[in-house]
């Protein structure tokens, strides 16, 4: 767990989530459930499995940290083509087994889905106390408090060796916005165009480390 210097109750988890310890709130972004089903519906043969896997990872993570509240910073779902009856059943089962409130800060993908499962509380943004606000799109950050966002699927690319580079999902702290990596297994990433003041954190084995600026370029 990596405590952020100016946000003492907020920790970055190597699983690609963040945890507000005083309120026991677990925050993840961009799960994109039902993505492979959406691909199959369009005639692309992608096997099923990641949606169930990601829900399993979320359950485990919430249990490990004894979370009291799960917040999704947007894009829990991929598209309406992926909202199969199987997925809706899996979500229902997940919420029951999780046993804590789930709040969805609706992302651009979620907004295109006509009927979100009723057990989800869907909000445009969420204030968490300590002047923290969860939004989906980092562009929607307003005011001076710390914003927690998703949407960008940030990935950092580190050249190593002559013609090779490492590509790692990362947390990005830019001014007062913390952008979470995409939590979903079947999600791509966008290599970030780092500015000089950006701070970048990646998972390294069981911990989160901050990358020295020399590696981020």
């Amino acid at each position: 767990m990596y405590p952020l210097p100016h946000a003492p109750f907020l920790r970055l988890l190597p699983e690609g989530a963040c945890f507000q310890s005083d309120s026991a709130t677990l925050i993840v972004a961009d799960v994109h459930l039902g993505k492979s089903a959406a691909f199959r519906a369009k005639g692309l043969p992608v096997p099923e499995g990641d949606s169930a896997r990601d829900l399993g990872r979320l359950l485990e993570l919430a249990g490990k940290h004894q979370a009291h509240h799960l917040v999704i910073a947007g894009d829990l779902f991929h598209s309406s083509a992926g909202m199969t009856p199987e997925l809706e059943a899996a979500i229902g089962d997940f919420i029951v087994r999780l046993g804590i409130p789930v709040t969805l800060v609706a992302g651009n993908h979620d907004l295109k889905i006509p009927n979100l499962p009723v057990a989800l509380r869907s909000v445009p943004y969420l204030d968490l106390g300590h002047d923290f606000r969860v939004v989906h799109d980092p562009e929607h950050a307003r005011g001076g408090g710390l914003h927690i966002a998703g949407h960008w699927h940030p990935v950092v690319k580190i050249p190593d060796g002559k013609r090779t580079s490492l590509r790692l999902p990362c947390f990005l702290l830019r001014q007062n916005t913390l952008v979470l990596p995409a939590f979903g297994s079947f999600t791509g990433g966008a290599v970030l165009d780092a500015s000089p003041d950006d701070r970048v954190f990646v998972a390294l084995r069981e911990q989160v480390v901050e990358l020295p600026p020399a590696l981020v370029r």
Partner: protein
Amino acid sequence: MPNASIQSLFAAKGWEPLEFQKATWEAYLAGSSGLLHAPTGLGKTLAVYLGPLAENLEVGAGCQILWLTPLRALAADTLRALREPLATLAPGCEAEARTGDTPAALRARLRRKLPHTLVTTPESLSLMLTHADFSEKLANLRCVIVDEWHELLGTKRGVQTELCLARLRAWFPAVRIWGLSATLGNLTQARQALLGDAFEGSVEITADLGKSIVIDTLIPWEIDRFPWSGHIGTRLASQVADEIEKSNVTLLFTNTRSQTEIWFQELLAIRPRWKDQLAMHHGSLDRAERDRAEDGLRNGALKCVVATSSLDLGVDFSPVDQVIQIGSPKGIARLLQRAGRSGHQPGRVSRIVCVPTHAFELIEFAAARDAALACKIESRFPVERPLDLLVQHLITCAIGRPFEAGAMHREVRSTHAFSKLEEHEWEWALGHISNGGNALAAYPNYQKARLENACYTVDDKRLITRHRLSIGTISSDPAVSVRFANGHKLGTVEESFISRLKPGSLLVFAGRHLVLVRFRERIATVKPAPRKGRGNIAIWGGNKMPLSSELSHAISRRLQGEGAPSAEMAAVEPILDIQRRWSRVPDDQSLLIEHARSREGEHLFLYPFAGRLVHEGLAALLAFRISRSSGEAIHTTQNDYGLSLTSKRGLLLGEGRLRDYLTTDGLLDDLVACMNTAELARRQFREIARVSGLVMQAPPGQKDRSQRELQISATLLYEVLDRYDPENLLLIQSRREIMEKQLELTRLTAVMQRLQSLDYHLIETKNLSPMAFPLWADRLSATLPAGDAASRLEAMLNTLNQAAAQA
């Protein structure tokens, strides 16, 4: 009598038909298919074209002759060559080209009505198969001619051609198929691959009219005592410039795009007055830049064009009277092909001047000449059972016209590539293109082709559009476009190159000195450099071609002292003499192993003469096996002649131990363990995923927002398949392809088996021998870093921390 009209054409031109031309006409008119093998510039176009043309001179009977060319850049030249006899013999008939470059208006016209002769590429032919009425438009098809078949053979495009030809044979059993090929070591197999089950009764015609090829070498005035790879790289530039001066138009071939940029700059520095008469040509230059070079060659306005293999093929540049090869030719066929770019008319002599970039290449040139004289040319082996291409083709066919599984199975198996297709592979492919099939339980609700009246059909409009855009097998890596602020495009570079430069950095690209202004969203904006500085020469990845087995064998014979006296061998003798005195001259009848010590520790040098890819695999394997027992880290390097191992200690091994380490037992497992094959296979999967339609290639120039949610990287897809469908045949194919492509597994296994039976010469050297030196000097150029992401990142962080602590 069709022959009569041909005779009259020749009489009118004052030509005398050549023997092989007559033989080809007769074979065609007798109803045979076949393969004509002839060097370029011998009138082979007339040989294969006049038979079918003269057979029926009627106008307006739809498309009668289909001409397949591997390069769309060749289509225009081919059209010119075909229209000439067409205008004389059948003035009312038309010839047109349909390729990716064809303007939309002409393409629309060709959709309505096909000309008498249609010139096209395998990709465009596939695309036309998706049109329901294509078979009706071809109802009078009599002959398909496949030009430059040797270029397609050995690639997936070749298999695509085979599948298209099978479709045409199924529609029109009487259609005759003729291939044109340069010299190959396996011409019979090439004909089998072309004709599939129509091979029976086909003919092979050879036109070897003693077209003489002269292979000369530019002998350096002074030979370095210790050459290393690339060391005398441009040292001979002024001698080369003198040669260019002596000729009218020179084509100067290099082996890599970077070398092209370097030689262009070098020549310009030596002869600034050639500024407007010097051009360059390589695959990463913008089309307009390349066209300028090609036009300049055609009309003789240029003095010299510096090129890569992008100019190996086709196009007839008659003014070219000299070809220069910089560095190792790597193979005999390639050297002959390049030599053939000069003297492009029957009866003229083709001359190539070879320029060594290091001393041992002198031996390669002498050896290549020996092998060319003895006609020991490389083979190209046809690709077998690429399932990615099979599923693409099945969708192509289903879009065009619903097919019945049994008939299609027979059709596919009538090709050479899929003649050994297994039942389970066929069932898998059918499942993959339709609803997942029984075996694919992990694919609920998937549907592509539908079964209707027992026939597979695709009728979803969006699927069809998407498929048409993705037909083909050429997948290029996403490249960064280099352009001026006004939009003028220069070409493309790789992201890994440009991302290491900062705004304001100097670079050399497309023969220009440039300054990087900015790099954003796959576009690098540049401006001309105010003054000439030492810019970064653009570099591209991609595999270096290994030395062919035939050429390395010829080299080994030269090293044993065989062959006629030659200037090359005389020039390199002082270096061979040192090698002989300090160690021994290696050959492929025994294995020379040198052991040496230096400040870095111990070195082991082996010279199996098997090409750099095999040596890379062998070096990694030996390092893995030795360090498994010694526990020491081992660094490896390799070149086309041999490989080296470097370690602090533990390399002083007896012959028995070395033989143990070189065993083929457990070869595959050890290779998988040491070569980061998982990572390599993941990369190979990108091509397979595109060909098989698993990922979509964004249509050029436009970003369709509605398709955005379907964008996914092949890497991610590989991981998902690996997790939930590990037996997926496309994954297995990518692992197999990478083993062959990156490691030449077949050749590696054969080499290791050969090494078992050879005598070993273990020699302790006091100084690094001339052959060891380049391997030692190469030790700093790293290859693929080993280890998983976490350990690589940890290593980098540690290095940074140590540096910080010392500061």
